[in-house]
């Protein structure tokens, strides 16, 4: 085993060397690149540690997250009491908020716009904020950095919307028990888990999809109240999940299917539903709702009479379809290599997918060990998303976010409120979605606030990053080295030096210099 790994490293090193002939990367450059892409940026001193250990060795360690000790995060997770509530508990809390609000309205409290400040409502809001903040805390503090990056990737690939009806209480469970356990396993398992998750079934309406004319064996049709509206009983098939499954989750928009396939897929998934949607919503297959005819998807016949298994068989086929391999590999290369993913990266990833039958770790390893990942054209070629920017900034200044939602609020302010992307395509990966004048100014403000210690709940520990000094040159060199990994331009050095020239208080000078460095152009890239 060990020899194999060493051999692999040697082979890859040779390929990497070949790819880099134009602009050789120093071990520090390689370490920074890996930390920027596989992790949420370096913490103080981490570039040196990764470079010393060997960047390929560090990458392979990140590919086996179970073997990485992560006590800090385990300890921090215990501070988030939302994790002790299952989706049934959260459903009850949500129902209580609704009931109390209705009650107050009935009593004549008609201020429709007034925020609901009852203890139950406050608890509900605190929990929702905790769920978002927990993502930031894990991203910032976890030793399993690549794993957290992949959780974010799949959360967007299999997007649900936290604020849609029952997804208010189904989303936390979805993240914890659908996405996270499968984030670095087999794609097929992840796909099936999302298909059977109450959060996805609710978000894309499949829970209401029934064969035309089918009616439940119990008086469901006797219109019952659900939340605030009265819903009529389901009337027929709903294509939403089927369409997004093909277009976004698996084959991709040019994946070779047509509207007929969408309808056939929807027929296969009739009956994939949830039990008691307002009380916790377990996955449940409804035989009565299932379309009992023969179906055909992409030319493959699905014989009648197999009930829920038809869906399972379809998901397995889709998970291993060449179009799916290509579509998902392309998205991974876009995430890790370049907004316009190089064909070579995609080909390497697809080949690994085929060899490993969709083991995500193997696909990732192929990307990281491929020449495109290390090509000069792809170094610092991506702009950070708001989440990447905020988390990398917190890591750079050694800030340890607590359970208060400050950092998650900053991420939201910069345009990426977590779990709140309405459309099923998830937050975009390309820079043009994130770089605009308003968002850039907000990044600068966030950087200045973080460096000045004005973000309670995420206080920078600058003494370990850039010790106070009366010598501006030394300060700037330290910031370049420890925060920007040596990427600071001459212009940035000059501008910061000018700004420091008339500031006598060294603590104030340091805060300004760090704020300018993090809010400046170099730190927006990775």
């Amino acid at each position: 085993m060990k020899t194999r790994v060493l051999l692999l490293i040697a082979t890859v090193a040779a390929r990497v060397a070949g790819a880099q002939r134009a602009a050789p990367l120093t071990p520090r450059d390689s370490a920074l690149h890996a930390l920027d892409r596989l992790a949420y940026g370096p913490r103080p001193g981490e570039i040196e540690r990764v470079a010393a250990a060997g960047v390929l060795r560090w990458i392979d360690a990140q590919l086996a997250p179970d073997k990485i000790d992560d006590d800090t995060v385990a300890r921090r997770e215990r501070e988030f009491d939302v994790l002790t509530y299952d989706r049934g508990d959260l459903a009850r809390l949500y129902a209580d908020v609704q009931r109390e609000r209705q009650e107050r309205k009935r009593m004549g409290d008609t201020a429709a716009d007034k925020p609901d400040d009852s203890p139950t409502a406050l608890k509900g809001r605190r929990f929702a904020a905790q769920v978002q903040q927990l993502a930031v805390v894990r991203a910032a503090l976890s030793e399993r950095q690549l794993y957290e990056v992949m959780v974010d990737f799949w959360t967007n690939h299999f997007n649900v919307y936290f604020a849609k009806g029952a997804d208010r209480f189904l989303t936390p469970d979805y993240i914890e028990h659908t996405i996270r356990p499968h984030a670095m396993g087999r794609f097929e398992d992840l796909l099936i888990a999302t298909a059977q998750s109450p959060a996805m079934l609710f978000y894309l309406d499949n829970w209401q999809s029934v064969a035309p004319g089918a009616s439940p064996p119990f008086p469901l049709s006797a219109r019952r109240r659900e939340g605030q509206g009265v819903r009529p009983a389901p009337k027929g098939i709903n294509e939403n999940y089927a369409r997004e499954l093909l277009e976004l989750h698996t084959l991709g928009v040019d994946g070779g299917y047509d509207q007929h396939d969408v309808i056939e897929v929807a027929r296969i998934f009739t009956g994939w539903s949830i039990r008691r949607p307002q009380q916790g919503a377990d996955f449940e297959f409804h035989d009565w709702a299932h379309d009992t005819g023969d179906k055909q998807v992409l030319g493959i016949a699905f014989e009648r009479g197999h009930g829920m298994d038809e869906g399972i068989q379809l998901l397995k086929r889709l998970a291993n379809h060449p179009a799916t391999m290509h579509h998902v590999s392309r998205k991974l290369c876009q995430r890790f290599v370049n907004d316009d993913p190089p064909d070579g990266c995609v080909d390497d990833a697809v080949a690994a997918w085929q060899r490993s039958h969709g083991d995500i770790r193997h696909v990732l390893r192929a990307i990281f060990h491929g020449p495109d990942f290390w090509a000069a054209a792809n170094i610092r070629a991506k702009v950070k998303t708001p989440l990447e920017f905020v988390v990398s900034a917190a890591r750079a200044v050694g800030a340890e976010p607590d359970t208060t939602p400050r950092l998650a609020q900053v991420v939201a302010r910069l345009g990426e409120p977590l779990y709140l992307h309405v459309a099923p395509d998830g937050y975009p990966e390309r820079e043009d979605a994130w770089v605009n004048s308003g968002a850039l100014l907000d990044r600068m403000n966030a950087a200045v606030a973080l460096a000045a210690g004005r973000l309670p709940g995420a206080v920078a520990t600058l003494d370990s990053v850039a010790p106070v000094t009366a010598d501006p040159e030394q300060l700037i060199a330290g910031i370049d080295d420890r925060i920007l990994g040596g990427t600071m331009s001459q212009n940035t050095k000059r501008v910061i030096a000018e700004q420091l020239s008339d500031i006598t208080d060294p603590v104030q000078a340091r805060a300004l210099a760090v704020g300018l460095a993090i809010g400046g152009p170099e730190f927006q890239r990775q």
Partner: protein
Amino acid sequence: MTISRRVFVKSGGIALFSVGLDPLFLARAALGLDRLSPPSTALHRPILVCLFQRGAVDGLNMIVPHGDPMYYRERPRIAVPDTDVVDLDGYFGLHPRLAALKPLWDAKRLAAIHAIGSPDATRSHFDAQDYMESGTPGVKATPDGWLNRYCQHDREHQDTPFRAVAFGPELPRILAGTAPSLAIADLQAFGLRAPQPAARDRLTRAFEELYAGSATGLLSASSREAFEAVQTLKRVDPTQYQPANGADYPRGKLGKAMLEIAQLIKADVGLQVAFADVTGWDTHVNQGASEGQLAARLAELGQTLTAFAQDLGEKLEDVVVLTMSEFGRTVRENGNSGTDHGHATAMLVLGGPVNGGRVLGKWPGLDPASRFEGRDVAVTTDFRDLFAEVLARHLGARDLSAIFPGFTPDPARFPGAISA
């Protein structure tokens, strides 16, 4: 004044990063020409303000069909009494708490479109808002909103950061997309934040130099826009703004948003598309009639629109305000003296270019046989027909099918909200 300065900035700035994209656009920009208007009206650039009434407004109690006995039969507790309605045409009338709008109606600056809505039957707020903002009813995967797509396809103003602005903490779905758009939570706080003006200016200069000297690609172009916007706002100085003509905006989010929109319009910073939310319309319980919950929301809306029109004065001639809401509410009141999720609703258009003083759209009536699914006001105008008309006839949009994919806008179906 401002415009001509911007034209020079525009032709100079654009050369640095998007030359060759669209020579026709550059030529027009450099000459200050607008395709649909003669050069002398370059200062009169059309502006669209969209207000989203989130929660599904009860169109029947906003623009009341007081001439229909069925309205009173179905709503014994929440119908607006005939004696309270501000009559418009003998059949429809304004809710009494919208009375402030009557002078605008009489001046033909305000029109209503009734029985308007989505061809999609959903009664989910989430789905219906999503469809109204994406502009693609029934299609969830549309990545951007229709206002953003308008900005993508008609690039006249693309280098002003204030071209498309949403007033609120986050960019709404309707403006999501690749065309630059701003979300402004507070106009006074836009830009770098620092305790004193001097510190703020200094920080702004420092970041401006950082980006001017080291940024590449999109970071460079966007940062230039950002600092230009900051400079522009500094000149405008929002802290000193006084509404004109005695306009009195109601306190609250809506009043503040509309005041800031008026401010940007009057400052000539290139605002073309503005958006704001107004919530509180989901009146399932104790909706009220002439007074009550809905009446309070309508009063705020009416007073805000009135103040906005007063404040703009002659500038209103360039502006259209368009209200929208995801669907309407049941014809019949429910057991809680409220209304449940329905289908068609009513929308308002206000402004100089509006073909006002009329209730537009084909009225399907309230007879149970003509209702949608036997319970709701039927949709006789697809919301896209109204939106498309406003984009084409007011903003001069050319490629409507790119803005509303899967839909073929047909001027013959336009409700006639904009004067020809």
